[in-house]
């Protein structure tokens, strides 16, 4: 038992959690903006995957990771706006449209990869620049907490600013207010003179840019090459984290932490003689339990509210 506790609270576990958390943060922040604006986009997985490849290509062509990152962001915005156009102007079903984006990304990345490199599995034959890793000088000297600031990718630090940005944008800016209004009730919003489509397009663009950053982190920070279908459900997990956190910035971030920790926990447990099948199911088990608890609390609240009425 001591061994389990020791491993669980070691510096390695913390840094592993933060690495996975970075991935989930970008995804769930993008999802938060989408949900707040009233349209759920399950194409997030596809946006992450395709922008991961675009980042590689940009960074390889220009031999500069900044260019790669910008390409990924632009691509994320473009795909997101196309999604917005299909859903709002052409009135397609948003779930179907998201599915189409996922399939497009899964097949399209392999297609693009084979055109560019002749290989369909991974991008190892086109070496590209990855984002630097650094340690924050003074903060990393703090005894216990120092590990939080030691040797992470640029994208990990950037993700903190993204959270801050999303929080402030939704809570404190006029644009955020409009996005929330449009999300709650588009008809009332338009009756007071808010251009529903314009606001939603803006929201999609921001969400796409954040998802693009997430994709860039995947191939320029977390890994240093693109592998086919490498997202393996991260987009969906981000959407789940967003919904579990009630589509609020803080809630989504907290549930991302929970998911990331559950993932790392299952990895740690596995190397400590625990049953593989049991342990691999752990993150999902945690999800169900938490959803149950949140659902129960909401139910109680609603009941009280109805009694008051």
């Amino acid at each position, binding site marked *: 038992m001591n061994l389990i506790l020791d*491993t669980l609270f*070691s510096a*390695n576990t913390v840094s*592993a959690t933060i*690495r*996975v958390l970075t*991935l989930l943060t970008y995804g769930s922040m993008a999802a938060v903006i989408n949900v707040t604006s009233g349209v759920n986009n399950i194409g997030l997985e596809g946006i992450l995957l395709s922008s991961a490849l675009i980042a590689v290509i940009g960074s390889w062509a220009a031999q500069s990771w900044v260019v790669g990152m910008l390409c990924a962001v632009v691509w994320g915005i473009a795909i997101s706006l*196309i999604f917005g156009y*299909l859903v709002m*102007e*052409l009135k*397609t079903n948003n779930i179907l449209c998201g599915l*189409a984006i996922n*399939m*497009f990304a*899964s*097949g*399209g990345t*392999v*297609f693009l*990869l*084979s055109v560019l490199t*002749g*290989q*369909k*599995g*991974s991008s*190892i*034959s*086109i*070496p590209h620049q990855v984002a630097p890793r650094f340690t924050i000088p003074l903060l990393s000297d703090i005894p216990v907490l120092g590990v939080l600031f030691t040797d992470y990718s640029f994208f990990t630090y950037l993700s903190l600013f993204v959270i801050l940005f999303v929080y402030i944008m939704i809570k404190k800016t006029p644009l955020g207010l409009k996005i929330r209004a449009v999300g709650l009730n588009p008809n009332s919003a338009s009756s007071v003179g808010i251009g529903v489509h314009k606001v939603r397009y803006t929201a999609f663009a921001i969400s796409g840019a954040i998802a693009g950053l997430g994709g860039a982190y995947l191939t320029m920070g*977390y*890994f*240093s*090459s693109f*592998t*086919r*279908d*490498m997202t*393996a*459900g*991260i987009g969906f997990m981000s959407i789940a984290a967003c919904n579990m956190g009630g589509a609020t910035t803080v809630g989504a971030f907290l549930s991302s932490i929970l998911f990331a920790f559950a*993932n*790392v926990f299952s*990895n*740690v447990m*596995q*190397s400590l*003689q625990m*049953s*593989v*099948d049991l342990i*691999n199911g752990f993150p999902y088990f945690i999800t169900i339990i938490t959803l149950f608890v949140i659902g129960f609390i909401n139910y109680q609240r609603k009941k009280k509210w109805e009694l008051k009425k």
Partner: protein
Amino acid sequence: MKKVIAFVLALTILFTLGACTQTGPTSSQTPASTPGATTSAGGDTSTGGDEIDYSKLKVCVLIHGLLGDNGYFDSAAAGAYRLRDELGVQVQVVEMGKDSAVYEANLADAAEAGYDLIIMGGFRWSSIVMETAQNYPDQKFIMYDNIGDFKNYNIPNLYAYDFAAEEGSFLAGVLAVEAAKDQANFPNAKAGDPLGVLCSADEPMLNNFVCGYLQGVAYADPDMKVLSAYIGNGQDTVKAKELALQMYSQGASFLFTPAGQTIMSIIEAAKESSGYVIGCDSDQSTLIKDSDPEGSALTITSMLKRVDNTIYDSVVAYAKGELEFGKGVPMGLKNNAVALAYNDNYLNTVPKEIQDKVEEIREKICNGEIEIWRASDKTPEEVTEYRNSFLPN
């Protein structure tokens, strides 16, 4: 507006199909040198007076997955293309993709298309091959990577062979133990460190790799500890990398990786934590030599599954009329079906004594002096118990 939707949908379908249609020759496959590779290289077709006319032979190779994995499936396709390029056999390679629902239909289509030989892998899908073989008794089939079930199926028209993955993995285990002791050439290893094995899923066929490796470790050093972990599937690169980092941080200096497509991410973990990797299925070290010299150097060697050689050899044997249908054959180190990759990295970094020892044990396995049991013959509980007996306390 409808046109735009139609256009977008058409594009989606096009790209999705683009990933899984039939493909032309891929030249990216680098053949690795294996011990005694000459047995299959020549083909020996013109020894006798009567020439065999290979150009009339029509062979269909069905790939039950996606090409471009730099491993198993690419190796099968490479074997097929070698038949075409060297002997002029009419070869059709069909990439069936990940959707297993179409395999049976594709196999039946191929059986009705009038090929002389149909070749498909039996990993996970052996029942489909055997059922189709039973339904088309006049069509000849070859199934690789599965020994076949000739008791319950009436299939005298099928030739099945299996890779003795445990034999090659045994060698990998011996090599890992010896290399871990040799701090002069492998400075990142520390005495008393455990070894590690990271496998894609906990299932009998894959446990053959794990248990073969463990037996090799136990043979070379009975007191050696081994950490083991399973990713859960062959695609989850994030989980593979996290598990690898976790195992390196627990002290494992050498990881053996029967982990499919995720091996590249394990090599990245090795770079970050200065560990070593023994690859699997194909020669990863040679593959990334130019693009990633650092990762290539840490990948000492790979346990190869020579799907290409065995397909080539069995088609040549069929053409000569030597292939015995109606039975399943295990193919191991002796047949050169599995091997350690003796690539540049292995030859240069591993000292001569260790190379000699590995070679000596290889011969012992070929002679039958060392017997290795298979995980697929045991119950899952026995395998788990065996695996856990290697864990550090």
